[in-house]
C-alpha cells in the first residue's frame, strides 16, 4: 500500500472506530437503564404487595 492509501485507510478507520465506540457506550447505557428499570419494578411490586 502506498503511503497515501495508508492514510486514507487510517481516516476511514478512525471514523469507523469512533462510531463503534460511541455505539458501545450507548449500549452500555441502555444495559444500565434496563437494570435500573428491573430494580424499580421490583421495588414497586414490593411496595404494593
Amino acid at each position, binding site marked *: 500500500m502506498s503511503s497515501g492509501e495508508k492514510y*486514507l485507510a487510517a481516516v476511514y478507520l*478512525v471514523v469507523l472506530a469512533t462510531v463503534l465506540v460511541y455505539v458501545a457506550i450507548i449500549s452500555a447505557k441502555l444495559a444500565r437503564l434496563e437494570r435500573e428499570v428491573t430494580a424499580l419494578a421490583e421495588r414497586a411490586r414490593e411496595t404494593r404487595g
Partner: protein
Amino acid sequence: MAVAAAVVLVAGVALALLWAPEDADQGPSQRIFYVHVPIALTAYACFGWGAWKALRLLWTGDQRYDLESYTAVHMGTIFGTLTLVTGSIWARTSWGVWWSWGERQLVLFLILFLFYAAYFMLRFSLPDGPGRARISAVYALFGVVLIPISFLAIRLAENFIHPIVFTRDGPQMSGDMFFTFCVCLAGMVLLAGTLYLNELAGKRLDLRLRELREALELG
C-alpha cells in the same frame, strides 16, 4: 432512520473508495475529502440544530428542548473532533505536516472545539434545573454566531498568521466526484441523525427513570 443511514453511508463509502475518479495530483489520499468535508458540514449542522433547539427553549420555556439542544451540541462536538482528526491526517498526507495554520477549516474547528468544550464545563458546573437549561441555551446561541465571525476572522488573519501556500479541491469537482460527495454528505447527516436520536432517547429515559425513582421513594 438507522436503516437509511446504514444504506446511504455504505453506498457513500463504496462510491468514494471504488467508483469516484482518482485525483490526478493528490492520488488516493484525495478520497479522504469524501469523509472529512461531510463530517465538517455535519458538525456545523449539529451546532446549528443545537442552537435552534436552544432558541426554542428560550422562546417557549419548554424544558424538553434542553436535552435536545444538549445532545445536538454533543453530537456536533464529536463530529467536530473527528473533523480535526481527519483533517490533521489529511494534512499529513497532503503536505507532510500534522497541522497547518493556513488551513481555514482546521483553525475554525479548533476555535469551535475550544468553545464547545467550555460548553460542557459550563454545564457540569451548573446545578440541574431550568437555570442550567437557559444558560446552556444562551451559550449555544453564542456558539452558532461565533461560527461565521470566526470564519471571517481567520480569513482576515491569514495576512499575518500564515500565508496560504496550498490549495484544495473546491466546488470545481467533476460531476462524478460531486455526486460521490453528496452521497457521502447525506450518509454522514443521516448517521448524525441516527446517533442523535439514540442518544436523546437514552438521556430522556435516564431522566424519566430518575423521576420515577424519586416518586417511588416518596410514595
